[in-house]
Each structure stands twice: as C-alpha cells, then as structure tokens.
C-alpha cells in the first residue's frame, strides 16, 4: 500500500487515508512501478494494462513471467512494470515470445500489442504462433487506430469509425473491410482460449479481467496460445471527446467486434 500521493478531495476534506477503512484499490496498480504516464487523457490502454497486471498478480506469476511488448502507445508501459519486459520490434512480438518460451517453457510468457502492431505489421506472426501451438498469452489492445503515429486506420477499424484517414468514418468501398482478429485466431487449431473484452465501462473491465485470468489459466495448463483482444478507447485518434469515447466504442466498434469468449479449451 503506497502513501496517499495527493490531496484528496472529498466532502470531508480528508487528505489522509481514513483509519477506519480498508484500501480496496490503490493509486498505482499492482506490478506497475510508476503510475504516471504520458498517454492521452481518456486512453483505454492503461486500464487494460492494469487488468493484465492484476491477472498476473492473481496467478502469482510476477516472478515467473516475461512480458513481450509491441510498439505502439502502450510501449509507454514497457519501462514501467515490475515484471520482466522484453521489447520487440513493431509486429514481431509473437515470434520473440516464441524464442523466450521455447528456451524457458516454465515461464508465463505473454505479449502486449496494439491492433496496428498485431493486425497490420505482424498479422501472420500471431496466426503462425497460434498454429504452432506456442504456449503463450497474447493480448491485443484494439482501438482501431495507430494511436502512436497519429490515429490512422488499421485493419480492425470498423465501418463508420473515425480515424485520421477516415474523418467521415470508414467506408468499405474506399477503405476496405475491418478484420475480426479474435475470430480469425479462434479458428486456428491449437489455440487454448480466445476472448474479446473491452474497457469502456467498469462492468467490461471486470469481465475483461476475468478473461485475462482465464487466458493465463489456459497457459498454465499448457493448452497452447491464448488470445485476449481488448477494445480500448483512443479519443485522440477517433477525434471524439474523452467522455464520449466509451459510448463511441460501444456503438461504433463493439458491434463489429463483439465482446465475449470465442473459444475455450478450459475444462
């Protein structure tokens, strides 16, 4: 439990932690070194990363895991976690994770990539890793844009979604169709668990956390590659106000990319 790090604002003007209460959520998430980060206001990625770290903690894997990061906005967390991190090049995380897990099969090796990283630059890496049955967990933070480079459309951008390239919304005639990555992966023989969550409201956050926990359970049981896609808000890339982004996600994105468990080999 860390010290209260700022002035609390409550009706009771309490600037110290109450003594007759127990802490149920701390400022800095578990296994996150420093909470401060430079991601945009209203970004969904930190919420998702918190959920992943919570799952690691829950499984007691902090000192038995390696996180392989892709390149995107979430890379901001690569020097910020209290688990071992291996930075991969854009698109290459599943192969890098393969190298790690093949030499250290006792570890929980997992990847964190954006949809641009996983679905654009390196789509085949995760598909091949899944078919090879690599025993890793792959997390994809899906906001339908390249956040990091300025909000351009990715392969997951849904019809109607605003991005820097599609200010009037993606149009299939002009910009092609969205790919449903979780569905693609769910189809591959050899995968252990596939689900899609979202972080646009507290209920989805909790549900997503459970998915990630299950994914790691599958990994611990040696069931092959597990994949959790997490829909995250990118108000910056979508050109929507931060407070409208969660609803925008629900309305414009989750219709195409529907939240739920797609495949599970868990008993």
């Amino acid at each position: 439990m860390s010290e209260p790090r700022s002035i609390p604002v409550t009706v009771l003007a309490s600037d110290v932690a109450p003594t007759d209460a127990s802490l149920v959520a701390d400022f800095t998430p578990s296994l996150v070194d420093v909470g401060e980060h430079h991601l945009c206001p209203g970004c969904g990625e930190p919420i998702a990363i918190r959920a992943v770290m919570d799952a690691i903690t829950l499984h007691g894997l902090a000192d038995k895991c390696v996180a392989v990061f892709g390149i995107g906005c979430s890379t901001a967390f690569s020097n910020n976690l209290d688990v071992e991190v291996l930075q991969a090049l854009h698109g290459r995380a599943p192969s890098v994770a393969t190298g790690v897990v093949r030499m250290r099969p006792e570890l929980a090796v997992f990847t964190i990539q954006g949809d641009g990283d996983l679905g654009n630059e390196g789509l085949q890496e995760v598909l091949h890793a899944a078919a090879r049955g690599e025993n890793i967990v792959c997390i994809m933070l899906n906001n339908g844009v390249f956040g990091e480079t300025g909000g351009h459309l990715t392969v997951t951008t849904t019809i109607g979604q605003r991005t820097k390239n599609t200010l009037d919304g993606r149009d299939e005639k002009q910009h092609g169709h969205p790919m449903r990555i979780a569905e693609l992966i769910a189809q591959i023989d050899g995968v252990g668990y596939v689900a899609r969550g979202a972080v646009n409201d507290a209920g989805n956050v909790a549900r997503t956390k459970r998915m990630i926990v299950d994914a790691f359970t599958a990994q611990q049981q040696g069931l092959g590659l597990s994949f959790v896609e997490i829909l995250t808000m990118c108000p910056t890339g979508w050109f929507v106000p931060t407070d409208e982004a969660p609803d925008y996600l629900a309305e414009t994105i989750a219709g195409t990319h529907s939240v739920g468990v797609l495949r599970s080999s868990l008993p």
Partner: protein
Amino acid sequence: MQREVVFTGIGGQGVQLAARTLAEAAMADRRRVQLFASYGGMMRGGNSDSFLVISDGPITAPPVVGSAWAAAILHHEHAGELWPKLGAESIAAVNSSVVDPARCPVEPGFDLVEIPALDIATELGSPVAASLVLVGALVARTNLVSADALLDSAASVLPSYRASAAAANRAALQAGLDLGEVTHPAWDLVAT
C-alpha cells in the same frame, strides 16, 4: 531584416499551433517565414519546440536557429537549450502559470516577461489555448505581426476537423494582445 522566435513546451500545450498561428500571420503581413517544428513521434508527452524565422527577404537559415530574438516559453522542461539562444536584444514571454521560476535564468540578460497564460486561458474556458494567450502577449509587446493578421490566423491555421476551436483560439489571442504595450518593436516599419 529577420526575426527569430523560438517556442518550447511539452506535448499537448499547443506549442506548434501557436507557432503556426504566428507564422501564418507573418505571411499575411507579406513576410517570408520558415518554421521548424520539433516534437516526438508519440501522441503524448515529450518535448515540443519550434523555431520560427520571419524575414523581409529570402531565408537561408538552417532549421534550428542559433540565436533568437524572441521566445515563447510554455513550460520549463525543455527550455534549457533555448535560453542561451537569447541575447541582450531578446524578449522571452514565459507562461508563469506553469513555468517554475527556479528553472529560469537568474540573470536573464534579456527581457523576461511573465504572463500567466494558463490562468488567463482557463478563465476564458479554454485552457488548451494558453499558448495562444502567450503568443498574443508577445505580439502585443513586439508587433511581430499585425494584430489583425494574428487574429485572422486563428481560423486559417486549423484543420477542418478542428474548426470549431477557432472562436476560442481567437479569444485567447485577443486576451494576449490586450496584455500590454509595444516595448520591443520587431520591425522598423510596421508592415501594411
């Protein structure tokens, strides 16, 4: 005749918008401009600097100017490299709502003007326009560009999907322009 204006701040403070607004205004005043924008590839955080050259004639200066006639300091974080570029003739407008006085030169050797730009912008209901308040204040003291050109560039500089911000930005520029008198005239003759 040539005037160099350097800008510095952190990502998200509107440094680049401010610099482009000033550049567009200078063009409207029929001057030549060159503006080098330096900021991280990430959407978030990091430095944001700008090097603007406004001139009566063709510009040969390299992108990062060696010395500057004026500065707009939105944040102290990356200002360290800019202070040495300012000389005895220079003027620096500092966003005093944010900038830590301890990070400013003790004996500047140039004119350092404190403008509580963020406070003023927040009062106007548009904290993101603080950089424009600062630029307005800089122009008020220097006549680097004409006030009309500056106000007009509030709209012209915005991409279509940001057009809605034009009014607020213009107000911020105006608030800056209202903040003082010409103390450092940039040009011998005011452009027409």
